[in-house]
């Protein structure tokens, strides 16, 4: 059964890019969210196998959302989407419980490798 992925990003363009990458590799898109608040709500509802999470978003940032999701479900797999040079934000997200991270601009093979390995930790 294909793993179900939820994409969280405030930019439609980024969501579409990721959607293409995931669908191209046979993953199922469980849903999308445009900010942290929406992400926390939708996670409870959709229970995807994996979330791709942007950091800088309105209302609630990705780090805060990650922390809440992991608190509610310690087995949640969250992949942080970061821009270059955001070491301190990424490390903060890792401390909040993120499983791994990918860096924009995305390289599909890199994204898929990270996602695959992250899902394997859950198995």
């Amino acid at each position, binding site marked *: 059964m294909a793993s179900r992925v939820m994409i969280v990003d405030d930019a439609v363009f980024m969501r579409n890019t990721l959607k293409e990458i995931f669908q191209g590799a046979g993953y199922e898109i469980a849903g999308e969210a445009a900010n942290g608040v929406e992400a926390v709500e939708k996670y409870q509802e959709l229970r995807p196998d994996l979330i791709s999470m942007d950091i800088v978003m309105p209302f609630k940032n990705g780090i805060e959302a990650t922390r809440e999701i992991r608190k509610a479900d310690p087995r949640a797999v969250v992949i942080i989407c970061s821009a270059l040079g955001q070491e*301190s934000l990424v*490390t*903060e997200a*890792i401390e909040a419980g993120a499983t791994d991270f990918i860096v924009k601009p995305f390289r599909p093979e*890199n994204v898929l490798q990270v996602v695959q390995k992250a899902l394997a930790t859950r198995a």
Partner: protein
Amino acid sequence: MDMSAYKPLFLSEAAEHLDNLEKDLLALEQHPADAERVHEAFRHLHSIKGMAGSMGYSPLSSLAHGLEDLLVPFRQEKRPLSADVVEVLLRGLDQLRQQLGQAAEDRAIEPAGEELLQAIGRLHGHAAPARGAPEPKAPDSEALRSLQVEVEISPDSQLPAARAFLVYRRLQEAGRVVRCTPTPEELRQGILPGRVLRLSLESREGLPELRRRLDLADVAAVRWLPADEKPPVPTPAPAAPSTPNPAPAAPTVRVSAELLDFFVDAVGELLAQRSHLEELSERLGSGELSGSVRALSQIVRRLHDRVMEVRLVPVSLLTDRLPRVCRDIAGSRGKKVRFAIEGHEVPIDRALVEALDTPLLHLLRNALDHGIEPPEERRARGKPEEGLLRIAVRRRHDRVLMEVSDDGRGIDPSRVLERARSLGLVPPGEPLEAAGALELVFAPGFSTREVAGEVSGRGVGLDVVRTTLTRLGGRVSVHSRPGEGTTFVLDLPLTLAVLQVLLVESAGRLLALPASRVLRVLPLRQENVAVRRQEARLGEPGADFAFQDLSALLRESSFEVSREAVVIGDGEQGRLALGVSRVAGHREVVQKPPGSLLRRAGPFAGTTVLGDGRPVLILDPDQLMERFVARGEA
């Protein structure tokens, strides 16, 4: 996994372990009951065994294993280490060094010699049942194990430090991370030099589980090394001042010496360019430009200071092997000697480590051969049987002072003088005060071989020590009291690469003088120059110097009138006022050592290239003064 990429790291780490092991063993020879040292020695052998094993160097690994086992009973029962065990361990250590050398040169590694193996076997026989040695320790999932982990992040990684941080977090979930280099804080700031993360971990998990945790994208390689049961914490205060422990290490990375040299050279060139820019902006008189140049200058200065710091290494790199050398020489001469090093942590220029090796060894041999008396003689003189050989290093401003002293028989100035006369180094009948006579030991040709016999073998005289020091921009002096001992003082610059010089013009040519040797610059009025006792003197209020035109000293004809005089000297020793056309300024330059051709061409210490590309010869003040004295005598 292909381990060849780890070879340089293995070689340098294993060599470090061996050096520390040697220190521990020598300390144990003095204090055999030092349980902490036994533990440390064990730890070093254990690490070498593990590392060599994972590199596939089985002869190395198995010898380390054999030696490690020798320590087991002493370690468990906290017994004092017996002298024969120390002896065999030292011999084993030498062999490990040889094997390491073979590994470095990609030669086949020879197994330990039969004789050594037999000695180890004999000791095993009566040391204790060496069963239950810690080696095979089955991966017991219950047992808490210590591991060293080295993780290399792939060059493809876009955020390598964050990637390393993830590794750190993953291992934290597996147990306790005792040490992490760089620190998590540094990783947060994006700092990961060389893309390598090193951790010490205590965990109950087995290797397969741990490996799975680090199955991450962009992790290029993971190396697992066994550590001892105890995490490597900074060692406590040294047991004896003679063999201090290494200082607790700050997080470090290994950088190739070549790269460092490049930095130093580049910064040196930057300094030169800076001087040139400063000159230009001054000439152009543009406020905007000069403000910017000033700002640039400050940055270059800071950069230079930090880069120079990187060049500095603790003096222990130079002195660490000396206790062993001292022990071996003293042993072969039937002398009892205690060796003490003070200030092993003082930083010196990396280039000095290599350059000083031979001179220091020579001074050491000298002290052991001629200085320190045999035990009977010492007893007869009312001295303790054990002689003292001491190296004390300290920093004074931008100089490093190194004292090599012994409490032996000292140097008798009258005998030195006698010998110098017999060698024709001093004209017969010329009186010399004691200090002057002592100086003669540095004279070329004043070999001590006659007395030394089998000793120095290589026939290196103290003149070589002096020549080396001079070449390094340093000095050596000797102080001695007959019957009480001798002290050699080595005075060295902290860094070698950058030299402060005074530029002077003489006979239409630009020349440089090391600024550290320039005492004064005086305006020159010909009426102040007088000829007394066939020697020109420059009279100044409160001072009177021997005077000579620089061009004449360089045997160049000049039609220019000297307008300024630069007084060079050594502080106490000779002073000489050199007449020059003008003083052209003060610069920081990168000194390039003189080739043999230049050495023969005149009194030059090297060359440099100024910011505007002009090559300039750097004068050697000592040779200038010698030349001056020689002229006077001719």
